[in-house]
């Protein structure tokens, strides 16, 4: 699935990266390369939501990025 939104760092637990999706949901980012970690950066990403996933971040569904680009 494709998602767009803003990449953000959340200082929760040991620190996590999320995608504040334009659909109003917060996704915990997974996958993608290191460069995706740009606080405030807007991206369009293709990937899948691992909605059954359990995390120590516990902020929302995990979005596993296959590919992305900054817009």
């Amino acid at each position, binding site marked *: 699935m494709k998602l767009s939104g803003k990449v953000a760092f959340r200082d929760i637990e*040991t620190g996590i990266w999320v995608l504040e999706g334009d659909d109003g949901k917060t996704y915990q980012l997974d996958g993608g390369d290191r460069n995706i970690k740009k606080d405030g950066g807007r991206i369009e990403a293709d990937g899948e939501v691992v909605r059954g*996933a359990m995390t120590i971040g516990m902020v929302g569904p995990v979005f596993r990025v296959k590919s992305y680009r900054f817009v």
Partner: protein
Amino acid sequence: MTKSLSLRLLVGLGVVVFAAACQEDRGAAESEELTQRALETTPGPVKAIAPRSGDLGNRVAGAIVVDFKDGTSIDEVNELEEGWGVDLEWNSVEGEEDGIALAVGVEDLEGALAEIRGNPDVESAEQLVEYGVPEGDEARWEATPARGPAAEDSGEGFRPNDPDYDKQWNLRQIHMPQAWEKTHGKGAVVAVLDTGIAYEDSGDEFKQVPDLKGARFAKGYDFVNDDDHANDDHGHGTHVAGTIAQVTNNKEGVAGVAFEATLMPVKVLNHFGSGTSADIADAIRWAADNGANVINMSLGGGGYSQVMANAVAYARKKGVVVVCAAGNAGRGQVEYPAAYPGAVAVAAIGPDGIKAPYSSWGKELDIAAPGGNKSQGEQNGILQNTIDPRDPKRSIYAYYQGTSMATPHVAGVAALLIASGGKTPDQVEKALFQGAEQAGGSAWTDQYGHGRLNAEKALAALKNPKEVAVVEERVTEVAVEEGTEAADVAGAEAPTNWSPLLWAAGLLAVVLVTLRGRARPGYLNVALKPGFLIAVLLSTVGLFFLPWIGGSHGSEVLETIRLPIPDWLEKIIFGRGKLANPLVYSALLPGLLGLFGIKGKAFRPIVGGMAIGFAGILAYSAFAGAPALSWLPFTFLAIPWLVINAGICLLIARAMLKKEAA
């Protein structure tokens, strides 16, 4: 039985079946709402185990996890798998014990699962869920933390000499100095299911952090790499373990809650913080089998998993207190595993005692504990010794915030309670909840559960049940007076729900309608006999409403008869009536008593009342949509099971009343 009688009875039964069928036909959204309503009003069970709709998402393609009945051998599995066309292997060395097996590369996943679930040797089977976890390498930490807030040091109690103890506002907030006067948690074993603990010096790879030097460790297990060395390669688990049992009064670093307790390192999340449902379920059972008194799970966010729910129920049955994080999404939904029955769900508060903005909350919440609130400054986080996420060999002192940080405070106090003589999870949880500082004077709120953790008061509640009983009565009064939603949910601890009795009355009316007009007055006479009425009452709601049968007077017998009869067995075996047992939630008991009782005139009204009562509570459970039946491999069978058995109970009741009235 005459033809017309049978017909009328069938019509009566049909009403019940139809009502239940309508129930099943409603949309997912509505069934969710019903589950919620059931959660608020069902007596006994605090949490429904029905899966929430909508949170079962993508899972590992072609991979399944099967939970065989404990003791199933690999030979039996090999024999079975041939018929299923899958290649199952034990998930870990625990397989022989706990029966959790994995298969990958399964082509027809749904077909295989359906077939596997149909086998009587299988407890549950589902697609494997892979757990994603946040990357930790951007953690903000300070090697030398800033000065913490001067959380008031009353000067009372034990004051450890750890140099950074002043920065641990969280420990003073939960009254640790006073609690440390009583106990340090010696003898209690706390399993930390996380990314591991930096507890061993092992070659070039791992190094014990200095403030865990001298701590007590039980034999651990690494479920990620399948070995005996559950060292931390992430940083989260060591921080969590530090809150529980950081070495204290050693002139090094910081303090921990139960610093003489024994830590059991159990690694279930890898160096990226990823893990699988199979590993976590295995680990829960492993910890319970290897002497853990408390399990700390500072993880969450997954969908409902029957395998996990069973594992939590198993641990609880073995007397383990299971403590889990409520979640960091800041929303009104407690994450799994905290939301499973049998788990203590923990929310996070800041230094001001107010719920932290990130902390999730909701119906299943049990208690609130310090998790920090760094939006008011770094020093308002929770400070412990852990490893540098960039270099597992390097020790750091880090301020983290999260419900993960709140959870080990509760696990630590649970260890103190166990070290002070707390025997069962029931006793420990009761002391935790009754010792908690109520939020706004309410017995329970969905933001703070039973209130804010207080170690000193929890220990007092354990030692002095009489005093606690008084507190509880007052609590109940407040809750009822306010008539708020909190009062409804507080009912989970002290059921205040009459619905099953109303259902029984309704069904009695159905039975009466199916009788011949002339005979009705005779039946009605029977139905007004004290034996009948008491049997109905005991079967449907129990004696919770009698003030002198309080919850904490210590008598198991009194505690049991507060509950309706179907919950007694569960209460006697498992310590609390949270899950329903399908054997008892059936027509079995009234049926057996009916066989013996139908001959004795004095027994017939009692058995009749019991049968009507059982029909009432079974039908209500089916209606509520949250029957929470344990040991039923297929949750979809639960409602038909309840409906059919309610019908049989009605037949029994009718036979009893007929014989009596004749």
